[in-house]
Every structure is written in structure tokens, then in C-alpha cells.
């Protein structure tokens, strides 16, 4: 089974290498949303630093959502999803492999670029490690929960909007704890509890996603 998952991971990474836009687009989108925010609200440092945590988290969530739509859709359209499902391994291993690549391609770059974003939004520098840590625990959760929606809308026309509707409500807890942890760190408060909750949600998503997305793919 490990070899099966590895075959999927390797194939998807090869595809990203052939088409790097898949990786760059969500990143550019993330930057754009961040850049538009001060233009729409105000460039004042005091206001921005106060709202930075929430803005970064919401933008990260939107960027993840944007790329989730194609998670299974491309494979479904060219028939390779059928071939993946035909292999004699449980469908949850397929889901895990796909989600891992998705996070590697869309989540990880966001984390790496987040210090830059934090500076642009005047987030206090002592909160930056917390921001990165919360994103590190939180973005895999976003990818996992999103995979459920992506699997459900795979064969459906116009799935993008639908995916957003299905998944955003499930993202509420992650957003709340993710953004609050950064805000707390900015105020110099302890963040241990937040990280524990985020980690708990990650474990929880890891438990429900493989089953539900796997069975949704087989509909």
C-alpha cells in the first residue's frame, strides 16, 4: 500500500513540476488578497497589525479552497481516478496521498511566505513564529476537510462554488483557533492551548476525512 501511495505522490509531484502554475497560482492569489486588504480598508499600521492575524488566516483559507476544486476533478475528467480506484487498496489511502501532495503544493508555500506577509501587515515580529506554527498545523487540517467536499463535488458540474458552500462551515473552528492563536501571541499571551486545540482538530480531520472522502469518491 505504501508503494501505491508513493506512486500517486510521485505522479502528482511530477505533474506539478510539468505545470508549476498549479503551485504558483494559489500563492499569487494569497498575496493578492493580502495586498488588496489595506487598499480596501486602510494602510494604517495600527489597524493592520490588529487585523493581520485574521486577514492572513482567511486569505490562506481562500487560497486553499481555490486549489481544492481540482484535487480530484482533473483525475476524474481524464479517467485516471478510475484507474486509481481500481487498484486493490482502500480508497482512503488514495485520499491521504492526494491530500498530502495538495498540502505540499498549496499549504507549505503559504507557510514559507507568511513571514513576508506578516511584515507587510505590520504583525509584531514576535508573533511570526506562532503564525507559522499555527499555519503548519492548520493548513493540513484545511486540506483534509476540504478533500471531503472536493470528493463530493468531483463528478458535478460547476463544482467550485458548491465546494465553497460545503466546506467553509467546516472551516469555522480552524479559523477561530488559528487566528486567535496569532492574536494572542501578538499580545504576548500563552499559545499552548491554541496549538493543542489546532492539533486536536488536525487529528480529528485525519480521522474523518479518509473515510468520508474515500466513500464519496466511490459514489
Amino acid at each position, binding site marked *: 500500500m505504501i508503494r501505491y501511495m508513493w506512486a500517486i505522490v510521485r505522479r502528482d509531484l511530477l505533474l506539478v513540476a510539468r505545470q508549476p502554475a498549479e503551485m504558483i497560482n494559489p500563492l499569487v492569489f494569497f498575496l493578492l488578497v493580502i495586498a488588496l486588504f489595506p487598499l480596501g480598508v486602510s494602510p494604517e499600521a495600527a489597524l493592520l497589525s490588529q487585523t493581520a492575524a485574521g486577514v492572513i488566516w482567511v486569505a490562506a483559507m481562500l487560497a486553499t479552497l481555490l486549489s481544492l476544486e481540482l484535487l480530484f476533478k482533473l483525475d476524474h475528467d481524464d479517467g485516471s481516478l478510475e484507474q486509481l480506484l481500481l487498484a486493490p487498496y482502500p480508497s482512503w489511502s488514495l485520499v491521504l496521498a492526494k491530500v498530502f501532495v495538495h498540502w505540499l503544493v498549496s499549504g507549505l508555500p503559504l507557510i514559507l511566505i507568511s513571514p513576508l506577509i506578516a511584515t507587510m501587515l505590520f504583525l509584531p515580529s514576535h508573533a511570526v513564529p506562532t503564525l507559522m506554527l499555527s499555519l503548519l498545523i492548520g493548513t493540513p487540517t484545511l486540506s483534509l476537510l476540504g478533500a471531503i467536499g472536493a470528493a463530493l463535488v468531483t463528478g458535478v458540474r460547476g463544482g467550485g462554488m458548491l465546494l465553497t458552500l460545503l466546506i467553509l462551515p467546516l472551516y469555522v473552528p480552524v479559523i477561530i*483557533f488559528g487566528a486567535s492563536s496569532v492574536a494572542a501571541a501578538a499580545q504576548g499571551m500563552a499559545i499552548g492551548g491554541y496549538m493543542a486545540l489546532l492539533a486536536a482538530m488536525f487529528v480529528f480531520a485525519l480521522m474523518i476525512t479518509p473515510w468520508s472522502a474515500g466513500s464519496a469518491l466511490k*459514489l
Partner: protein
Amino acid sequence: MTESSWRMPRWFHQMGSPKWFYGFAGILQPWFAIAALGLLTWGAVWGLAFAPADYQQGNSFRIMYVHVPAAILSQSIFLGMAVAGAVGLVWKMKVAFMVARSCIAIGATFTAIALVTGAIWGKPTWGAYWVWDARLTSTLVLFFLYAGIMALNQAISERHIAGKATAILAIVGTINIPIIKYSVEWWNTLHQSSSFTLTAKPSMPADMYLPLLLTVLGSYCLFALVVLMRTRSQIVQSQSGASWLMQHRDITGA
């Protein structure tokens, strides 16, 4: 899910037979209709005209008799939908999927009622229609969950697949609801905006809570009525051509 050899009582499998369900639901339907109409009218009249006013909120608290049932039902229907969906997935029971799908519209309606009446109630109580109160916020999220399921159902044209998709989403949603509620409540205490919750009452005289009991029970009956009606029409649609249905008196008109 593939192995469904668990032993279940006979009635359980009977429920799964469209023919049996159709007949049984047909018997229950008028009783639920009468009960719903009676209980809701009784409760509403009592609550509107006879129950004493609240010493703190005055007459606006009468909104409770429609807001609280709607709020309770919005959550129980979601749970019911998930249970029906799980039964459908485990025992491959088509009727269970139909029941799950029948829950969507009525559940979304109750959620919308809870939201709007909550907002209207907020105006005389908090002085604003919308406050980011924990309960209102989590009800809003619940409404979004319903909206998602509804949209997904409309997007999938094949009935079988739509039923299973509804089931999976309802189960995932139900597991998530407590987490969402907890996180929203926690978030609310962090950004304390209102310390005064609408319906938290330490003790109520019988005159005040009995109407509430009536409207809650009436709402459950109405929910049951609508689900039975919708499930029956789905059975008719899926079984069109089955000999039992062709000979049924609903069709022959006898």
C-alpha cells in the same frame, strides 16, 4: 459498509421496504397533521394571549414560543438526517436515503426561522437586529451547512448518488456541529459582546413553559408530517411501475 450482515429486528427491515413504508406512513400522516395543527395552534394562542409577560423582557419574550422550537428542531433534524443517512449507508436501504433527503428543506426552514426570529427578538432586547452572539452565530453556520447540502442535492441529478452524498455530508456535518458550537462559544467569550442570552431562564412558571412544550411537540409533529409526505412522494417517483403501487388505492382512486 460493504458487509451488512448485522442482525436487526424484523420491523427494521420492514421499514426499509418502500411498499411497507408507503402504507405505514399513509396511516400515520393524517394523525401527525392533526397533532401538528392542534398543538401548534394551542401553544401559539396560549403563548400569545394567555401566558404572563416576562418581568425583564416584557412581551417580546413571547417570541420564545416560536424561536426555541425552531432552534431545537434545526439541530434535531440535522441529527435525524445523519442517522437516516447512516442507516442507508450501512444497510443499503433506499428508503433511508429518501428520508434523509426529505429532511433537508424542512430543516433549513426551521433554521431560517430560528435565525430570523432570533434577530427580531434581538431588536427589543439588545437594541440591534444582529449581535454576534454565540447561539445566533452557530445557528448561522448550521444554516450554511443546510445550504451546502441543499445545493449539492440540486447539483447531482441522479437520485441514488444524491442520497448517498447527502448521507456522507450530513454525517460529517453532525460530527462537526459540536466542535463548531464549542469553538464559536469560546470565540464569543473571548470577544465578549453581550452577556445577556435570550433564552437562559433559571426558572419559569408553568404558565410560561407549558406553551413552549406544546409548540416544541407540535413542531416535531409537523416535521414528521412533512418528512413522511416527502418520502412518500419520493417512493412513488422511484417505484413508478411497481405492481403494488399500480394497484394501490392512491392510484386506482378506489
